[in-house]
């Protein structure tokens, strides 16, 4: 075996080990733990737990809020994405940025905003009569806001891939705008719609923040795991619920991948860009609708910002910074914020490099199809595992004294590992598509010149993919700052995190400090995103500079 083959195989072994430690091992531990009880393990124990009436009710509730949130968010995101891509909207850049705002804050923040607006002491409470925000309606509204950017990203991309020739052909055949929408636009974004709906569904099912803050007595699966593990210390029941949560998300993920494989390319080399002509009715409707949605998204952040500097919302709104004195409250203080930044930096760098290395090995070095299938499967599997289930699986796997990696438990390393794994799939798909876009002959050309694959990777493929690499790192950073579900069972006394602090402070009744911590996460993410965009703009400009042909 030559050195190149040896290194290629070594890399594949290392990536396989990573998936073994980060996914296969923990999930196996989760299954084993769900079968165990005081008297030993059996499938009957698991069946008994899974048919527990409370669990069945929580499962039904989860499916209901998941489906409703999915339907509302997808419809709103489609409208907004249509406005951004198919209407002559003024200030499109601002509308696009507003649509992404909830991504930068923990999902809890939208729930906190609802409490500030519609809770018992909410600003708009007097207008609500007997209605209450607590319950499924609160969970749905909070999740619609929190998951909106995810659906928007997918649908905006789908709607951007439009072939102007189809619309010109329709116009020449005398078809109306409405019939073209039904005949061309909707079929073109069918996969985007399915994908957006399923992503929102999975995120909602796995969310713990909204049910905790505005769920009231409405039980959902995510909250049930949390209660079983942290409240009642019933780890076996927690494991059973975590397994139950895997089923709908795995099914949703399976459908999404199936839909993706059936989608044909919307654009060909001969496609022409769609030229938008002014259309007063359409443009006015879009401007109005998008303005309302954008105002809602910005409003959530504005309310939390305002409340976090108000002395005693809503009775005394005089300015104060006392809620930002985090060291006075439980939750980890400023140190938690420092830990979160540390986690985000490690996750961004480690995650982006790992994802690209794995995608490169799979795409460019053509490993044996069994290895390729296994690694691709693992790369997609992580999206099917809800954060809480993954976090709990890590507890069972790493908190086992017999495990050689037991020392990782409670450290920053396990948080980084869990966070990278939790957000792996989306990053993997984007890295794969970036690498697929490169000429497949690069490696062959290098081989003919006697240069090893890592030389092409280091000098050509990675430098060309640098903008995708930065995008991936930003994706990991922002999500590591905001995630709660995957880390809530894993942090130790020295690794408390800001996003978890928001949850804990709200739990302890410190709602304003919770909002303040949420805002700090938002501002850090915003700063990193702006810095990242600045770097990306320069990188993109340098790749096209001097283009003459």
């Amino acid at each position, binding site marked *: 075996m030559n050195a190149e083959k040896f290194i290629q195989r070594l890399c594949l072994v290392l990536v396989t080990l990573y998936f073994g430690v980060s996914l296969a091992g923990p999930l196996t531990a989760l299954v084993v733990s769900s079968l165990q009880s005081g008297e030993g393990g059996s499938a009957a124990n698991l069946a008994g737990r899974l048919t527990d009436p409370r669990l069945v009710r929580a499962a039904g509730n989860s499916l209901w809020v998941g489906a409703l949130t999915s339907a509302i968010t997808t419809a709103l995101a489609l409208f907004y994405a249509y406005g951004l891509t198919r209407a002559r909207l003024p200030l499109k850049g601002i509308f696009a940025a507003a649509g992404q705002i909830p991504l930068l804050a923990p999902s809890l923040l939208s729930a906190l905003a609802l409490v500030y607006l519609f809770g018992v002491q909410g600003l708009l409470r007097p207008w609500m009569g007997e209605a209450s925000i607590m319950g499924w309606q609160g969970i749905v509204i909070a999740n619609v806001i929190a998951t909106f950017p995810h659906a928007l990203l997918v649908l905006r991309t789908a709607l951007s891939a439009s072939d102007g020739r189809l619309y010109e052909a329709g116009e020449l055949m005398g078809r109306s705008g409405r019939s073209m929408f039904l005949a061309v636009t909707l079929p073109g974004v069918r996969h985007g719609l399915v994908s957006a709906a399923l992503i929102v569904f999975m995120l909602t099912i796995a969310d713990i923040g909204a049910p905790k803050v505005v769920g009231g007595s409405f039980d959902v699966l995510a909250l049930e795991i949390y209660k079983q593990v942290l409240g009642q210390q019933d780890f076996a029941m927690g494991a059973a619920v975590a397994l139950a949560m895997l089923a709908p998300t795995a099914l949703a993920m399976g459908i999404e991948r199936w839909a993706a494989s059936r989608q044909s390319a919307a654009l060909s080399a001969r496609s022409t860009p769609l030229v938008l002509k002014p259309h007063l009715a359409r443009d006015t409707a879009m401007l109005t609708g998008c303005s309302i949605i954008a105002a809602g998204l910005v409003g959530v952040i504005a309310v939390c910002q305002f409340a976090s500097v108000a002395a005693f919302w809503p009775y005394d709104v005089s300015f104060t910074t006392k809620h930002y004195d985090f060291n006075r409250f439980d939750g980890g203080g400023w140190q938690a914020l420092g830990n979160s930044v540390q986690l985000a930096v490690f996750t961004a760098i480690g995650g982006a490099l790992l994802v690209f290395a794995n995608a490169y090995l799979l795409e460019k070095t053509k490993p044996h199809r069994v290895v390729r299938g296994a690694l691709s499967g693992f790369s997609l599997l992580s999206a099917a595992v809800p954060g809480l289930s993954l976090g709990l699986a890590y507890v069972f796997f790493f908190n086992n004294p017999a495990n050689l990696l037991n020392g990782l438990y409670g450290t920053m390393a396990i948080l980084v590992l869990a966070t990278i794994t939790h957000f792996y799939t989306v990053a993997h798909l984007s890295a794969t598509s970036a690498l697929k876009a490169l000429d497949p*002959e690069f490696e062959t050309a290098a081989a*003919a*010149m006697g*240069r090893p694959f890592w030389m092409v990777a280091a000098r050509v493929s990675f430098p060309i993919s640098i903008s995708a690499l930065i995008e991936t790192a930003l994706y990991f950073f922002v999500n590591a700052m905001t995630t709660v579900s995957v880390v809530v069972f894993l942090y130790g006394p020295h690794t408390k995190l800001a996003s978890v602090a928001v949850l804990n402070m709200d739990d302890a009744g410190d709602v304003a400090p919770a909002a303040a911590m949420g805002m700090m996460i938002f501002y850090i993410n915003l700063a990193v995103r702006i810095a990242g965009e600045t770097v990306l703009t320069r990188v993109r400009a340098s*790749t096209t500079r*001097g283009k*003459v042909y």
Partner: protein
Amino acid sequence: MSEAIDVASLSKTFGGQAALSDVSFSVPEGAFACLVGPSGCGKTTLLRILAGLETPSSGQVLLNGSDATRLNPASRSIGVVFQSYALFPNLTAAQNIAFGLHGKDWPRSNKQARVDEVLALVGLSGLAKRKPVQLSGGQQQRVALARALAPRPRFLLLDEPLSALDPHVRGALRAELKDIQRRTGVTTVMVTHDQEEALALADLVVVLRAGRLEQAGSPRHLLEQPATPFVADFVANMNIIEARAESGERISIGATVIAGVVHGLAPGAALSVAAAQGNTRLTDAALPAACPARVRAVEFAGRQLRVIARLEAGGTLIRAHAPLGSPVASGDVIGVAFDPQSLRVYAGAP
């Protein structure tokens, strides 16, 4: 000339599908060989096996007399130009060329000189610092050629290097490519699906069809003595007509009997007859040695007309030339006559 490349009984299957079956030929040192054939005939697979990028299922590749069948690409002393050029877009022309200059043979001082030398060889001396995106298609093709030639390979392999260029640039580069090959003396194998390109460039043309070797030889040999009806059609652009052997030196095309054709086959045997377009004449349909045909199309072909007609016997489409101004039109019934001496006869129907 000694043999630089020997391909012996080479076969390659992909998942049970044969891409190459028992292919053998030799390329003399310093020769320019073209692998030609229609899409899917296995020519690119053969080139990739020569480059060491694929391993054959059976058979042997000898380079300068040594078995190179399982040798890795780096140890074969080859330069490759890909159809897409595979130029690294983030590196300049000079950096692309220097990418292949590594190891103890290429200390830093020699590297720059060699880059300058090959850039001059392909006529791009002033463009060393340009990135591929700043070069035209033809210039990119030259950089790819310079990159392949830079390490002074003993073999140059070209995978349809001209196919992405427009016809005008293509013609100019074709001549330049031949000139550079002659000046460097590197043994070259080029893949092309364009038989005209192969005939213009090659010292040796290797014709493949469905993974099998049809014929290998000089362009003149292939044009004058095509070994199979496929070579006669694909390379020499001849008309292939269904016929039947008659007694003596006679054959029949439908009801028309043509005398003076040597065939050596039993009367009644099915034949394929190849007739060069230049030896296919349009005449009166009533003449005894003329095969009746109906004109399907008349096209301008330079200073003459190209007439496409369907033979009434067998329905074969034939192509022939007629002087400009000939009174022939689509739908006319005409006679087609062949020069018996120039016909090539193959056993079996087309």
